[in-house]
């Protein structure tokens, strides 16, 4: 069963994804609905836009269907109620009020909680009974509860769809009670399908399918279709029904959710078919398998058409075949007519000539009908006016002899319409009429629709339709259809193809890209080193001159000593000549070395190329992880709405730049801090309407969420137009909490005071409201943001409002850094925290209150040695000689600055952040480690905590030190 488990896991994963999207959609629509209820009565239309309700209904229905498939009874039960509510609303049986919307919000919340629990593989602790009861109360009050038969009945009704649902039931046992049940099904929605009509004619695809969702749908459906076909091809047994059902349903759900209703309808029909088989505990019969395979092909070519932009519509054909196959299956279980056993229907059908067209029918007369034989003869006469009989049982001559006819089976060649035939057959004394059309299409596609019409003397009328002729193998037909469809080229634009990828794989890829970046840096270093050795030219010159000297020496010796000859002289001459020759060959060899220079140039070019490629890979990998921030922002609409309700304030949330893209992991991490900031703005920032009016502001406050790019960073701003931060209160609080000494307080600028809110344990709210003050202080917000290498800043104007600005790097894994050397150790400082680098003479550094400070361009910056704040347990001798100058890297976050004295600068480099926590633990003042080009590990300095540590002083750090040994 592990295969099955795997399947269920996959499905669950898909369900979670899909349900999250559906819930988002529901939430968004709900907010629109909420706005609708907020409108003043006079301007509000009596009912909200039906499209809105329809979309919500569809979302709820999809959720219900999916959850039912996975046996998630809790989710199923709740969505079922939601669906009821929405159905009532869209049928105008229920007026949407603020209360309805509230109940609905609760239901959606409950659902979200359940889905979250599923995702976390936890038991869902919540209880949805309350919400369900609330919905039921509401429905009952509005008097629409009658719609609610047993849950099972409704489930069945929806599962079996619309038109087809009631047919078998009625045909099987035409007793009054069943008829009543069937009548409860909304009759108007049951289309009468005329066989030569397009069976999908009444469904239209939405005009504007968003390409993004389309792409997702295409991928999904392809996978599902593959699964489906695979199962079907392997001649499915009873156990395969489940997976068939799931797959059909999945196609249905996803197609419907993006508005491809025709595909949805087709898949729906397939699902019905399988459902029926499952109910009867039997495998899907062979002909149905064929038809379903054809349907799968049809959907595949249809979606293929969407992908390529070439319309290919063979859905209708496939649908027709499916109906036929389904009917063939269900025909077997049709209860035979009590009188003749329906045995004549196939005979009547067989009696039709080839290419014949008309109807086969079965008429049952009321029992106890006097002179029923006469009635039958009259009926036959009536029919004859419309066409010619090719079959009649009992036949006319027989009827005359019979005393009482209970039923009549006939085959009639005619060109009349189904309606006309029905009218003809509607005479007194006829209890039931079954009619099947025998159609001869020009394409020789033989299709028969069987319409069952049950008429009772009562006024209840149920009209259903069903194709009922066994399908014949017709592979050529579908082939034709496909070709025909493909020929119809449409001008639809081609959607982007997408692929679902496990985010862990992307992480892995990111990691590898990071290593590539490291290696690239290493290549760069090697290249630079080699360049240093390339002083070939001057060496060549030196050798050349030496060689010239040597030859001059030999020549000179010859001239000078002329004819003299002695063994000593000869030896000297030989040595000189040898030297000259050696130098010559050395020169030659060195000449060869110039080629190395070219090779070196090649190397640097290759390194350059590598640079470009690795940059490209890095960027592409980053891009793949980018998702728009929009959905995250949309979540806050709800938050603000709830806040407005509970706090009696009027707040509008304005969202800007929702298409700005961020790393997926960052988006995941940003949710909590953003919610907190928004709550904070709403709770502490925005004033009550009265206060606002008094201050001459619009009574409605505005919180703006804005995301945009600035340079190499992404900025998220949360701006409110409230009263701004109260510096006095913050200061008072900080003093009372012992965060600031009273003596220091007087000298603080408002900006410095504002920064106090980041201190741990700071909260100005006097009483803990329902909204803020849930224990997550601003310090947590800050640390959350810093965890993803971001920085958060705040600006506030009294009376004007407050702006929080979160600055984030484009990616979490790679950090542009400045590499510096302090006492032989290489450290990386994130470039974004570097304000400037200055070189100042020692004389410019003085002390203020014992704190070393430097004057840098007319401002005073405190200077620290790294060793002042870091405690090393291994010390090295300082090898740098004291010099007259000092190099200071001025680092800063949130407006405060610090000069860090460094021994040397190595330049800027992209470093890959390695977490220390992964194998070790977090270390104060260190944001992580990175691997340098030469393979060494260097620490990345955490400027924010360096600043904090330097303010506390080295003593404070040391006192925290606990040595375990």
């Amino acid at each position, binding site marked *: 069963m592990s295969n099955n488990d795997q399947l269920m896991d996959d499905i669950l994963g898909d369900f979670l994804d899909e349900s999250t999207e559906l819930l988002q959609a529901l939430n968004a629509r709900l907010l629109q609905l909420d706005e609708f209820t907020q409108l003043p009565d006079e301007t509000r239309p009596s009912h909200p836009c039906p499209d809105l309700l329809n979309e919500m209904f569809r979302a709820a229905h999809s959720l219900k269907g999916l959850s039912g498939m996975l046996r998630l009874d809790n989710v199923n039960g709740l969505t079922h109620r939601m669906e009821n509510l929405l159905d009532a609303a869209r049928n105008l049986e229920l007026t949407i009020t603020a209360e309805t919307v509230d109940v609905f919000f609760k239901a959606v919340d409950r659902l979200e909680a359940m889905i979250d629990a599923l995702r976390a593989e936890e038991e869902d602790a919540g209880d949805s009974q309350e919400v369900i009861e609330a919905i039921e109360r509401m429905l009952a009050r509005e008097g629409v509860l009658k719609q609610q038969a047993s849950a099972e009945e409704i489930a069945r009704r929806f599962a079996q769809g619309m038109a087809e649902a009631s047919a078998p039931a009625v045909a099987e046992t035409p007793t009054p009670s069943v008829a009543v049940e069937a009548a409860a099904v909304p009759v108007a929605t049951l289309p009468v399908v005329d066989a030569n009509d397009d069976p999908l004619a009444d469904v239209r695809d939405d005009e504007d399918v968003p390409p993004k969702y389309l792409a997702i749908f295409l991928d999904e459906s392809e996978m599902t279709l593959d699964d489906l076909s695979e199962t079907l091809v392997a001649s499915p047994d009873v156990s395969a029904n489940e997976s068939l059902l799931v797959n059909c349903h999945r196609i249905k759900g996803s197609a419907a959710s993006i508005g491809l209703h025709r595909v949805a309808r087709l898949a729906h029909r397939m699902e019905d078919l399988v459902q029926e088989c499952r109910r009867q505990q039997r495998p899907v019969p062979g002909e149905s398998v064929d038809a379903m395979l054809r349907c799968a092909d049809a959907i595949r070519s249809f979606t293929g058409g969407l992908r390529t932009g070439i319309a290919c519509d063979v859905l209708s054909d496939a649908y027709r075949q499916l109906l036929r196959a389904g009917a063939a299956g269900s025909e077997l279980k049709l209860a035979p007519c009590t009188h003749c056993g329906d045995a004549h229907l196939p005979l009547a059908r067989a009696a039709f000539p080839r290419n014949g067209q008309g109807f086969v029918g079965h008429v049952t007369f009321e029992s106890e009908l006097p002179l029923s034989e006469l009635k039958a003869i009259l009926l036959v006469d009536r029919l004859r006016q419309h066409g010619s009989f090719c079959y009649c049982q009992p036949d006319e001559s027989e009827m005359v002899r019979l005393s009482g006819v209970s039923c009549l089976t006939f085959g009639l060649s005619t060109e009349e319409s189904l309606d006309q035939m029905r009218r003809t057959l509607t005479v007194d004394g006829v209890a039931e009429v079954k009619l099947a059309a025998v159609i001869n299409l020009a394409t020789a596609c033989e299709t028969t629709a069987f319409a069952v019409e049950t008429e009772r003397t009562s006024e209840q009328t149920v009209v259903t339709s069903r194709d009922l002729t066994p399908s014949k193998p017709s592979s050529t037909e579908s082939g034709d259809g496909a070709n025909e469809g493909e020929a119809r080229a449409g001008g639809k634009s081609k959607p982007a193809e997408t692929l679902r990828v496990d985010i862990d794989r992307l992480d892995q890829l990111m990691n590898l890209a990071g290593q590539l970046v490291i290696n690239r840096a290493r290549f760069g270093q090697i290249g630079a080193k080699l360049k240093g050795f390339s002083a070939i030219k001057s060496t060549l010159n030196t050798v050349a001159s030496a060689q010239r000297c040597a030859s001059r020496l030999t020549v000179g010796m010859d001239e000078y000593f002329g004819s003299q000859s002695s063994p000593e002289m000869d030896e000297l001459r030989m040595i000189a000549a040898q030297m000259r020759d050696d130098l010559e060959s050395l020169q030659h060899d060195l000449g060869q070395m110039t080629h190395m220079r070219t090779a070196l140039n090649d190397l640097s070019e290759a390194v350059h190329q590598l640079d470009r490629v690795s940059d490209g890979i890095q960027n592409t990998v980053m891009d793949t992880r980018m998702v728009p921030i929009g959905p995250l922002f949309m979540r806050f609409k709800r938050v603000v709405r709830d806040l407005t309700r509970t706090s009696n304030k009027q707040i509008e949330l304005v969202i800007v730049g929702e298409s700005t893209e961020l790393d997926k992991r960052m988006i995941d991490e940003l949710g909590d801090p953003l919610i907190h900031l928004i709550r904070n703005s709403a709770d502490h920032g925005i004033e009550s309407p009265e206060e606002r009016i008094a201050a001459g502001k619009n009574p409605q406050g505005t919180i703006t969420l804005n995301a945009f790019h600035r340079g190499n960073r992404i900025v998220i701003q949360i701006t409110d137009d409230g009263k701004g931060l109260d510096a006095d209160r913050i200061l008072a609080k900080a003093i009372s909490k012992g965060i600031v000494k009273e003596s220091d307080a007087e000298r603080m600028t408002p900006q410095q005071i504002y920064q106090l809110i980041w201190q741990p344990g700071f909260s100005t709210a006097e009483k803990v409201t329902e909204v803020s003050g849930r224990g997550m202080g601003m310090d947590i917000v800050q640390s959350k943001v810093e965890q993803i290498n971001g920085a958060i800043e705040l600006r506030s104007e009294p009376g004007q409002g407050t702006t929080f600005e979160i600055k984030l790097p484009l990616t979490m894994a790679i950090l542009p850094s400045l590499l510096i050397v302090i006492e032989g150790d290489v450290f990386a400082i994130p470039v974004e925290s570097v304000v400037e680098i200055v070189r100042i003479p020692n004389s410019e550094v003085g002390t203020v209150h014992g704190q070393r400070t430097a004057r840098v361009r007319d401002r005073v910056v405190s200077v620290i040695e790294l060793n002042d704040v*870091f405690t090393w*347990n291994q010390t090295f001798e300082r090898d740098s000689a004291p010099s007259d100058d000092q190099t200071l890297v001025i680092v800063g976050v949130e407006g405060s600055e610090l000069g860090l004295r460094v021994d040397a600068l190595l330049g800027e480099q992209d470093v890959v952040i390695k977490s220390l926590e992964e194998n*070790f633990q977090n*270390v104060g003042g*260190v944001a992580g480690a990175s691997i340098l080009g030469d*393979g*060494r*590990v260097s620490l990345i300095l955490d400027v924010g905590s360096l600043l904090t540590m330097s303010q506390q002083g080295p003593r404070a750090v040391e006192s925290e030190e606990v040595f375990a040994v």
Partner: protein
Amino acid sequence: MSNSEVKLAPQSQRQADAGTIQVVSFRLANEEYGIEITKVQEIILVGEITRVPQTSPYIKGLINLRSTVIPIVDLRLRFGMPEEPATDETRIMVMNVGGKTTGIIVDAVSEVLRISKEQLAPPPPTVSGLGRDYLTGLAKLEKRLLILLDVDRLLSDVSAATQMVA
């Protein structure tokens, strides 16, 4: 740099017979210790170690093990022995404990031994102090004694102790 010197066989092949355990024996000062082989990922040469501030003295620092940054514990310092400069025989044993990878510096790695249950003895009561907490027992070999270390406790205590510092 830190080259892999001894690559140990994959875990599946290290499955000891029932009743015997396999240990990697190593030397520290004049004593011989053993660590169960399943805990040891690999043994590498000592390369350059980047020191880390605000940690216990026995944390020598960080190294780059095939693009993963792992901490290095000096076992001598961990046991309160005097520090010795590295020699040709000094090695880093890379451990996999509790999902974290940590290296420990030892004076020398000797061999892989198979020890039967009969050879095992509980730690003598006379051993006291820091070391005792991390001993699982003694293995009596022909001519010598092997001190078996409980690496899990040894290294989880490392994180716990240093976490207080951080």
